[in-house]
């Protein structure tokens, strides 16, 4: 077991961010580059170029080693460099400095359904997708029956996948990928697809892959419960650097404690969204008390408000925006969306908006919480996901029956209506 599978040394990756474009991605045209040429030449000669662009380090001097058969989890906030790291290890993109030595065949599962062609049938797509992921025809043929049995799509094998339901599509895609047999497997968040039952099945499959075949697995996820279940060792990336590397329970504990300072408000002057999303950006999220004051400390009897301001750049036919609340130990408390009661409100027109939601008092148990923001088009794509964007505390309201204020079990502590009568 002491044999090396992967050794990463001083790995860094930088991107240029051009401020002239206001932070919004744009396609380059030949025209733009030709117009910029004289200026580029001038700045090169006068040596004060780069005035409008900034170098952003997605990964900074990352080093670690992975042994054969090890299952390594990688965690970190959005933009911490997790996906960039996997992309470099999978040779999709090149590092800027440093490097990695890989001992064995690498297979990656960065997104389910990559390379599926909507016009082709399920059968044809199995071969296409398998080949793209690095399987030979013979290998795919050998596993064909296993794949369709796993995906449960026997009846639709000769139907073009564009007629598949999204569930079938995802099942087929995962089934192909799960039957890959590389020595080193890179997985990015793919377990969070499909319905609950299929998730359970795919998680079990991943465990089987990791346990039986002695394969090396590197697994990126936002779900702490999945990571702690699958991976004995975890690396935590923060701002492109390795913040911690060790036993999963320790690292996850440290990761959950980063918000040791309560944070009532975070803002992004240029907006933030998932990679590649241009239609919507979140500008800020914040917490307000009943007097609309910013705070991160609430009395358990008083309502608290969650606020998000966002800008829509292109019309979106349907989008929900909402919050997920977690207790600090990772227990989910609730998930709510602005369209929960107003489905017609899902259409977003270009403009800047502020959205506020009030959580009633006498609901949350005293303790510390973390808020995640989620904006997305359900079943289509996620637009913005900010995990652990805010942290706050709820302190005990001095109950009249304070004498009985011992710690209580449960996730919430609502104020219930009690009635008592003498019989």
């Amino acid at each position: 077991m002491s044999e090396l599978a992967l050794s990463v040394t001083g790995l860094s990756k930088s991107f240029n961010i051009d401020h002239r474009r206001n932070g919004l991605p744009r396609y380059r045209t030949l025209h733009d580059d030709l117009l910029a040429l004289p200026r580029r030449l001038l700045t090169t000669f006068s040596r004060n170029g780069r005035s409008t662009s900034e170098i952003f380090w997605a990964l900074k001097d990352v080093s670690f080693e992975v042994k054969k058969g090890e299952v390594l989890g990688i965690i970190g906030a959005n933009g911490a460099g997790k996906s960039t790291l996997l992309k470099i290890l999978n040779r999709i993109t090149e590092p800027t400095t440093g490097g990695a030595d890989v001992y064995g065949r690498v297979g990656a599962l960065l997104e389910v359904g990559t390379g599926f062609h909507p016009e082709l049938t399920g059968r044809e797509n199995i071969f296409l997708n398998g080949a793209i992921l690095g399987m030979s025809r013979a290998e795919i043929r050998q596993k064909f029956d296993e794949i369709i049995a796993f995906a449960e799509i026997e009846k639709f094998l000769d139907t073009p996948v564009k007629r598949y339901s999204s569930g079938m599509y995802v099942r087929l895609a995962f089934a192909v990928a799960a039957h890959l047999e590389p020595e080193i497997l890179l997985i990015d968040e793919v377990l969070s697809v499909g319905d609950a039952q299929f998730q359970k099945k795919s998680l079990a499959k991943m465990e089987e892959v990791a346990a039986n075949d002695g394969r090396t697995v590197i697994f990126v996820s936002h779900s702490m419960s999945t990571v702690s279940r699958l991976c004995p060792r975890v690396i935590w990336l923060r701002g492109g650097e390795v913040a911690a590397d060790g036993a999963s329970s320790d690292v996850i504990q440290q990761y959950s404690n980063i918000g040791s300072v309560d944070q009532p408000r975070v803002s992004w002057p240029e907006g933030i969204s998932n990679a590649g999303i241009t239609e919507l950006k979140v500008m800020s999220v914040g917490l307000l008390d009943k007097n609309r004051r910013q705070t991160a400390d609430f009395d358990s009897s008083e309502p608290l408000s969650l606020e998000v301001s966002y800008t829509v750049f292109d019309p979106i036919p349907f989008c929900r925006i909402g919050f997920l609340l977690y207790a600090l130990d990772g227990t989910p408390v609730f998930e709510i969306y602005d369209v929960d009661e107003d489905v017609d409100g899902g259409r977003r027109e270009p403009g800047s908006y502020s959205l506020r939601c009030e959580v009633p008092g006498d609901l949350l148990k005293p303790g510390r919480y973390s808020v995640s923001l989620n904006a997305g088009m359900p079943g289509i794509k996620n637009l913005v996901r900010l995990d652990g964007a805010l942290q706050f505390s709820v302190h005990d309201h001095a109950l009249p029956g304070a004498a009985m204020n011992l710690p209580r079990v449960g996730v919430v502590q609502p104020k219930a209506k009690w009635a008592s009568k003498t019989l």
Partner: protein
Amino acid sequence: MTTFSTLALVSPESSSAIAYAEPTPVVAARRTLTPTLRIRPTKGWAALNLRELWSYRDLLWILVERNIKVIYKQTALGMTWVALQPLIAAVILAVIFGRVAKLPSDGVPYLLFVFCGLTAWRYFSETAQRSNNSLVNNAQLVSKVYFPRMLIPLSHTFSALVDFGVMLIMLFVIMAIYRVPPTLRLAAIPGFLFLTAMTATGVALWFSALSVKYRDCNYALPFFLQIWMYASAVVYPTSMIVSARWQTLFALNPVVGLVEGFRWSVLGRSALNPAMFWITVAMSVFALLSGAFFFRRVERTFADII
């Protein structure tokens, strides 16, 4: 969104099956093996790495298969379009240039003359046109999986062969109609086809790589190809250029030699001469190699800018 809660519900018993590995970073692990893969930043020109390309041949064939299956899906006429397109093009050219403008055609019926040129030309232009946007259309693949990116444009070189085959059969039919007897020279067609494929692949590699960065290529290429066609002796014979010196210079455009090569094989009449032939060979090789090296040089940034 329900991920968290549902995953948390899964019972933890089965996780005990995972072998517990040493959690601390390993420094002293044995390094007896040589790595199968070294990932390092690269600069400048890169080797073509033909061996890797060869090891991915299965994927190439599957991509070729996909191109062929998909191209005329959900059209009423389906594969009939493969035959219809060049036929309509040839008839239009024959009417305009043969009848109205009365361009010379080396003494061959104009329709046969122009169809012969079109067979070579259309294979060239279809390959270039289809691969031009191919990387951008496959952005999902390029940014999510690793494989030699060259396979994507290359797959069109092969899938366009289907169209070429259909045109070749039609060409033989037209030959029969005009009672042009086949000769042994027809055996040279695969050779000229190979040269055409090389040139077309070279151009396709240039354009597909450029269009990742500059989407202008989508708009520029159709015009560029149209101009190129009229500059390539498709609708008129090279013999229209009287001076032999100018003819040789004209051959620097490799498509001229290829079109004339096809005419030489089919009609037996052509301005093709040895000097022109060797220039064409040299230019085809140059097109392919320059395209391939340029592609390799810029492909490392594809995933970042696509």
